[in-house]
């Protein structure tokens, strides 16, 4: 069991936590403003695809990253128009976003590359995979500890740093800025925000756009850092795990990071636990894969206390008579 704490497993944990954490924070902005976002999964997927497709054709990582973010924001705005402007059902709109992303990525991908939905490998200049080895390589000579520190903290992709920096930043925005206070208020009681002379619609759109940007980064992490290229349905339910982490964290940023790290640790440990025996029984792979979900159910059912969602979440704002 100790091997689960090996540097390589912890390294995987950090890398796997990154897309989860970005998506989880995306959900946090959106849901704190009162817009439920089941469509995280779809936005991650379409962003991953856009990053890979543009990366392959243009051969520039930064343009590819921009494309991933813009595409995700566009999808976020579809959700916004449906839920905020037209006061549609947020769950239905989110599900629609997921299907739309899955379908569009496959159709466009096939038309572009004729590879059954996959994209070709990204050229090196279109990847954002590692840190700058040259700058910190001296640490590797400091023995095993230095090597571990180097591998864990100084050899990660840019997304890792962005995601973990986004945690304190999000906390600061939520609790120390005017925008954050209004965002929290609009998720609790939009009528109070409206009567205070602030636009509910404007605030919610801004929240949804924040969610779009973060989902774009999350998707780009998948296709440009963890992999190099797009694979069909490569988000593999991460959007939903992120939502579970969000509830688990009771919509708070630091706790969201903890939850994402926990889920990522389970995911990273999956392969290491396969075929292992505990008390004479072989652990079934399926059990290991199901662990994050079981954990969510068990923890939500009683161990974290009541998870109170933003009160106005899921309800379109209509001025009352």
């Amino acid at each position, binding site marked *: 069991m100790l091997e689960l704490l090996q540097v390589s497993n912890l390294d995987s944990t950090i890398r796997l936590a990154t897309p989860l954490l970005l998506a989880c924070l995306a959900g946090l902005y959106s849901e704190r403003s009162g817009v439920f976002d089941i469509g995280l999964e779809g936005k991650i997927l379409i962003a991953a695809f856009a990053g890979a497709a543009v990366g392959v054709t243009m051969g520039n990582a930064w343009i590819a990253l921009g494309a991933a973010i813009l595409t995700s924001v566009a999808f976020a705005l579809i959700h916004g128009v449906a839920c905020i402007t037209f006061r549609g059902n947020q769950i239905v709109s989110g599900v629609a976003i997921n299907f739309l992303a899955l379908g569009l990525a496959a159709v466009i991908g096939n038309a572009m590359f004729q590879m059954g939905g996959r994209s070709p490998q990204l050229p090196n200049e279109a990847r954002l995979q590692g840190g700058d080895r040259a700058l910190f390589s001296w640490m590797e000579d400091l023995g095993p500890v230095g090597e571990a520190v180097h591998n864990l903290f100084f050899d990660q992709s840019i997304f890792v740093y962005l995601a973990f920096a986004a945690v304190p930043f999000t906390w600061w925005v939520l609790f120390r800025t005017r925008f954050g*206070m*209004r965002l*929290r208020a609009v998720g*609790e*009681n939009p009528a109070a925000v409206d*009567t205070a002379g602030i636009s509910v619609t404007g605030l919610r759109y801004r929240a949804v756009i924040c969610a779009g940007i973060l989902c774009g980064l999350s998707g780009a992490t998948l296709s440009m850092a963890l992999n190099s290229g797009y694979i069909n349905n490569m988000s593999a339910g991460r959007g939903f795990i992120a939502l579970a982490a969000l509830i688990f964290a009771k919509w708070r940023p630091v706790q969201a990071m903890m939850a994402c790290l926990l889920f990522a640790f389970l995911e990273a440990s999956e392969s290491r636990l396969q075929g292992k025996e505990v008390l004479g029984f072989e652990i079934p792979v399926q059990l290991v894969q199901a662990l994050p979900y079981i954990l969510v159910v068990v923890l939500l059912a009683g161990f974290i206390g009541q998870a109170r969602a933003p009160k106005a979440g899921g309800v379109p704002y209509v*001025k009352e008579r």
Partner: protein
Amino acid sequence: MSAPAIELKGISKSFGAVHANRDIDLTVEKGTIHGIIGENGAGKSTLMSILYGFYQADKGTIAVDGARVTIKDSDAAISLGIGMVHQHFMLVEPFTVLENVMLGAEGGALLNRGRAEARKELERLEKEYELNVDPDAIVGDLPVGIQQRVEILKALYRGAEILILDEPTGVLTPDEADHLFRILGQLRAQGKTVLLITHKLREIMAITDDVSVMRQGQMVASRHTAETSVEELAELMVGRRVLLRVEKGEANPGKVKLEVSGLNVVDELGVARVKEASLQVRAGEIVGIAGVSGNGQSELLEAIAGIGPITTGSVELFDIAGEPTPWRPRHGLGHVPEDRHKMGLVTKFLAKENAVLGYQREDEFGSGVMMDKGAVLETCKRHMEAFDVRPPDPNLKAANFSGGNQQKIVLAREIENDPDVLIVGQPTRGVDVGAIEAIHRRLIELRDAGKAILLVSVELDEIRALSDRIIVMFAGEIMGEVGPEATEREIGLLMSGVRDGAAA
């Protein structure tokens, strides 16, 4: 003399076919408390919403401090110095008082600096107006009376010179209401103008300088409060003379219809809510249960109605021959719950659907799985006419009726179904004078028709006016029974748990 604080001329507003406001003129002098009184649905709230920029008037002009203005949203109203305390508070419950007050007036993109300034200003306002609010308390934990003061603070913090209060005392205890009036007096003393919307005549007489009366979307009169009387205002509101006392003859009690013996209710926390309650209600009488809210009346009522738990004891109904009948709510037992929103209505359903709710399986509303929509509609129309529900539109959602009219829908449903035993909780809570009169008369008629009625109300006046026998509850116990001739003091002593009061 300075220009009036507010001058409205020819304001009209329609919602579809409904004329909520018709050609309204109103002048409010600076530094006064001006009451706007009218029945539920008379258009008071609409008029104030226009003033606060929530709605735009279809026609008419608004002048503030003598200058003509257009108020296109709440933001514009705030910058003109108009503040509003809504009937349903506009507060963010998990936020602190300070945060609620700051919302929308944060004083910069970062909160820190604004927070310090807001705290200082808040402390000053609190002292000046005796508001007694802790800036760091979480609003959701505060009692409603204090939440309302937070709303007042919000308005003052934004520099309101004109404060509109929409039915402010509906949710308050008498003590809290008195405190509110003291605060309003302070505001007037500081030169602020207060617009008080209410349908309670007592409040108008107690606190206002001037009063304007609205009826069916029109402004029917303006008076100096000192030069008018409760009777005149009531008549102006309703458009005819109102009997403020209920006229009723002697009761002719018959056989026992409802018998409660040794009833105990213990809630999930193990607290005894009702202790050993025993009572009888006979045909042809009204038994009132008096008591300060929260002394077990609600639990007793729910237990009798069959919707609350009974720990020990029994509730029995008797048929015409005096034989115990099987416990069948809806068959001979009508129940008007205390809280119409939680239990009386499905507010998202149409009025006609609500009019038959609970009785939908009766043969008259269809057979088999299909409902007879015509019969449902007819029933609702009949109810609306009998109880003067406004607007009389069976196809309107229940949520879109004013509180008093919602109550009438519930009352009509239970009363018109001709129950043998009727249990009524707070029949006139949030209902206007005209409607109260009609509801009271209907209850007396029902009594005279030989029905047994059990009435729970926190309005002592109502209990005394209607009941033939009054049972007083305190801390879950029945303290005693008095006749309708008992004085307010006698009943008051029982209500506060002093048992010898009745004998004294």
